[in-house]
């Protein structure tokens, strides 16, 4: 297929020397000038095309050559082959021909197509496309006699608007809307005249043309569509076909909510009117197009029920079904009154197609339609999704295009499926079958999809399924081969004993259960099975099959996504939990016994450092009647005594004292918490002051000095002295050490009374630096 000869020709074209190239240009220029164009001209142009397209960097054509190519391209009698060659050379080379070609646009349809190809390829912005666009619209607008409309008008226009939808004014959009209605709905139902040699659109008819037929041979009884056949076609029938071909794109661009909707009429009035087709003549062009498009789609759906004579027409029927349902979906999104007209038709269509897997791909847009509109229309959609989620993955996992469409459907509708279709999450074992079969192509999509399948009920089972994904790949492979290979000997010949062993195991009734578990369509029968290792043994011989290896390579990626998602969810929950704690300090009262035990146990200081410190801080902060009315003096006293005992024990100064094995922060938090509690039950103040007064001695003792830094020791001493000073002013202490729960509100700073605690805090902070109140 691709030979060394071809490679060497490409190399020659890329490496042609400049001198030789210039000589070649001169020869080409001469050939183009002559009136007669022979096969030598064709050959030379073909060679020139290769030269200009073979390099990454564009070649610069001499002006003379470029001009001659443009002239030839535009001359009316130019044969198609020459035109295409000129167009190809000009598109691939520089300088760009856009402006010069756009300046001289003519009515000649054949050259217009080639000119358009160059303009579209080389245009850099909207302005460069404008002349071409305006020219096409002018042709559409003027009443042309038959044979004058460039047959590629609609494809060119469609391509232009796919880059610059804003290029058309509202009037121009309406003009096109009107023309589309004419072509879609009012094309002739008689055949075109018999063709003379060459050319599309012929002159006067030589005989009376017969009627068009449907794909099954029956004479057409309704308006013309792409599913009507005849010997030859009239111009408006060709335009009917081109119009339907670009209809979806047109509606998406100009009929979609928010984008370029410039309807001046009140849309609510219009939706009432549009529900009845008899009054459609009164509708503005956009709404009229919607109506006629809807009728066209309905007709296509009905025409698809006929038994086509030709196989290509059967294929076209499926294609038309997909397009018709998609267009109806767009129309219904714009105007929900169409939903009630659409559903009877689509329900019937679903009924017709659901039994036949050959129509599986046509069912995808139907499922999308149900997802979008069934709720609004109060239509039950369960059967449709059950069919989709349970049958397709099980029976068609190896159809690459269906797999792709199914996975895109899930990905694009994840949010809605999670919310409204419980069967979606439950069907994850089935959904993974597409991935197991074709990992490289689908892994990126499944990375997005996986979180949407995870919930509390499914998470563990999903984890097991991910780990067993290669087993699933192997089993699916065996399933396929088992269906294909009837005779064991054939398998041996083709694939060796390894596969034969696995196949035999697959066919054993005793192992059926294992394989059925792996192939299960729905979750819920158990996270995993006991005899998994047996399954692994049976499939061991397939572990080197490429499909299994490719699948195994993507499992770590998915596990990563899995655990990331779990971590995210957990963080969200625990973040919420912390918030809850701070908003529900009543938990302290509810759990007081447990907290007392915990806080009173000295061993917890070293074994649960952070937690201990946090708990002690929490006690100081929230154990107060202002947070929970159940907080009694007795409770405060109990906590105080418990913590005081801890403080005393860890700050004993004896000869056998070991250096402290906890962070100095534990000490400061303990001291502060005790002070807070004491400020709420003032009998406790004298006791605490005594304890705190011993802190200096403790802090300056040898074991402590040997293990804490000077700053830490200083901090302990100053904190103790600050607290002692504060406790000498009990009422002040009460405010400073326990401001009201709403003290963070800026309002509290402006009010003289409520700003006191904050001022005191600031003052005390200043005071302690200069304090000489430290006893002893």
């Amino acid at each position, binding site marked *: *297929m*691709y*030979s060394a000869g*071809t*490679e060497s*020709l*490409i190399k020659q074209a890329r490496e042609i020397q400049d001198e030789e190239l210039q000589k070649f240009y001169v020869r080409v220029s001469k050939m183009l000038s002559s009136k007669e164009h022979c096969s030598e001209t064709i050959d030379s142009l*073909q*060679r020139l095309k*290769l030269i200009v*397209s073979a390099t990454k960097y*564009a070649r610069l054509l001499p002006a003379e050559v470029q001009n001659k190519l443009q002239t030839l391209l535009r001359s009316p009698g130019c*044969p*198609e*082959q020459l035109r*295409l060659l000129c167009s*190809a050379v000009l598109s*691939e080379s*520089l300088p*760009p021909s856009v402006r010069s070609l756009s300046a001289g646009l003519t009515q000649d349809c054949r050259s217009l197509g080639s000119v*358009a190809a160059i303009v*579209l*390829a*080389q245009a*850099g*912005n909207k302005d460069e496309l404008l002349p071409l666009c305006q020219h096409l619209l002018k042709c559409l607008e003027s009443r042309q006699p038959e044979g004058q409309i460039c047959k590629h008008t*609609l*494809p060119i226009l*469609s*391509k232009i608007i796919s880059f610059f939808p804003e290029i058309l004014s509202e009037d121009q959009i309406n003009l096109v809307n009107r023309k589309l209605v004419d072509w879609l709905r009012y094309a002739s139902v008689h055949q075109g005249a018999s063709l003379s*040699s060459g050319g*599309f659109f012929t002159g006067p008819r030589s005989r009376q043309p017969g009627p068009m037929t449907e*794909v099954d041979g029956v004479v057409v009884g309704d308006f013309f569509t*792409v*599913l009507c*056949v005849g*010997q030859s*076609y009239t111009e408006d029938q060709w335009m009917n*076909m081109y119009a339907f*071909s*670009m209809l979806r794109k047109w509606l998406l661009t100009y009929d979609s909510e928010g984008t370029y909707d410039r309807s001046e009429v009140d849309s609510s009035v219009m939706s009432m009117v549009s529900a009845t087709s008899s009054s459609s003549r009164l509708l503005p062009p956009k709404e009229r197009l919607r109506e006629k498009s809807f009728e066209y789609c309905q007709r296509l759906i009905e025409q698809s029920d006929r038994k086509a004579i*030709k196989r290509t027409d059967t*294929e*076209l029927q*499926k*294609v038309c079904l*997909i*397009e018709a349902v998609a267009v109806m979906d767009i129309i219904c999104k714009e105007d929900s009154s169409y939903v009630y007209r659409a559903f009877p038709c689509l329900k019937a269509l679903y009924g017709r197609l659901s039994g036949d897997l050959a129509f599986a791909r046509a069912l995808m847009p139907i499922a999308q339609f149900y997802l979008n509109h069934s709720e609004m229309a109060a239509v039950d959609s369960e059967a449709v999704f059950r069919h989709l989620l349970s049958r397709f993955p099980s029976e068609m996992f190896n159809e*690459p*295009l269906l797999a792709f*469409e199914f996975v*895109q459907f899930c990905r694009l509708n994840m949010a809605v499926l999670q919310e409204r279709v419980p069967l979606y999450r439950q069907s994850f074992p089935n959904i993974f079958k597409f991935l197991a079969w074709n990992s*490289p*192509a689908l892994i*990126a*999509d499944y990375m997005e999809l996986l979180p949407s399948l995870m919930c509390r009920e499914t998470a563990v089972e999903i984890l097991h399924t991910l780990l067993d994904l290669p087993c699933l790949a192997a089993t699916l492979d065996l399933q396929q081969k088992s269906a294909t290979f009837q005779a064991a000997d054939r398998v041996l010949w083709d*694939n060796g004993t390894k596969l034969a062993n696995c196949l035999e195991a697959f066919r054993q009734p005793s192992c059926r259960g294992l394989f059925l578990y792996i192939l299960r369509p729905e979750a819920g029968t158990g996270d995993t099975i006991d005899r998994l290792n047996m399954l692994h043994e049976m499939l061991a011989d397939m572990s080197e*099959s*490429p499909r299994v290896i*490719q699948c195994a390579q993507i499992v770590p990626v998915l596990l990563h996504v899995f655990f990331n998602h779990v971590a995210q969810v957990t963080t969200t929950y625990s973040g919420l939990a912390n918030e809850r704690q701070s908003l529900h300090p009543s938990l302290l009262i509810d759990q007081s016994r447990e907290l007392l035990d915990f806080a009173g146990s000295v061993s917890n200081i070293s074994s649960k450092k952070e937690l201990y410190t946090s708990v002690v801080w929490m006690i100081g902060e929230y154990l107060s009647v202002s947070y929970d009315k159940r907080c009694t003096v007795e409770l405060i006293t109990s906590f105080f005594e418990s913590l005081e005992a801890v403080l005393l024990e860890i700050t004993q100064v004896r000869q056998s004292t070991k250096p402290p094995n906890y962070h100095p922060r534990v000490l400061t938090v303990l001291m502060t918490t005790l002070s807070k509690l004491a400020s709420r039950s003032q009998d406790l103040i004298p006791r605490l002051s005594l304890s705190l007064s011993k802190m200096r001695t403790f802090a300056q003792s040898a074991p402590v000095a040997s293990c804490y830094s000077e700053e830490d020791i200083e901090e302990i001493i100053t904190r103790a002295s600050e607290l002692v000073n504060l406790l000498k002013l009990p009422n002040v202490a009460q405010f400073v050490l326990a401001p009201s729960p709403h003290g963070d509100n800026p309002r509290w700073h402006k009010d003289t009374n409520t700003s006191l605690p904050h001022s005191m805090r600031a003052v005390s902070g200043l005071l302690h630096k200069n304090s000489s109140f430290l006893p002893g």
Partner: protein
Amino acid sequence: MVHSFLIHTLGPVSALSANESRVLFARAFGPEESAQRGAEPEPEPELVPETRRLLQKERLAVVARRVRSVVALGRAASGVPAVECVLGEEAAALGEADVGVLRLTSGEPFAVERTVLWLAVQSLAFCLVCDMHENLLLAEGTLRNIGRRCLEELRLLGPGSEVILKSDRIDALLNHYLPHGQLLFLNHRFTHCLDRELSSYGNK
């Protein structure tokens, strides 16, 4: 609509490194889309035509490489031995051909998201780069049709170099069956009329 049509190699090419693919034919039907389409234009710095063309070529080369890789993996997984058909056996070659589709996310390599549909016949692939939400069944049919005609008219199963020397035939095919990237709903009669038009191509 279709953004571009490519024919590229799937097998090893002596002048290129192992994973690269030689693009034998490429036709992009329109300009490259700016990523900011739709937003109120902050005019993006306009690229000169030279740069635009270069970018287009490089992007298509990236697509070819990705398709090559995915086809190789798919063939390895299916384990079906490669069949070598010769001239005259086009129908058989097409029967054995693999078809597949890949999503090209935004930036990889085009500014907007697209899909690439490929048809792999022995050591060559035919690709259609389509916009998102295209009628894939129609695209598949169109691709098979164009692929078949290319195989036949350019004698691709043989050792010749028509694919690069007579590439105007491919342009003619595209002009009729995929004008400016528009996929067409053609029943057998419309196709027949287009075939008849094409049959006179190249005859003066």
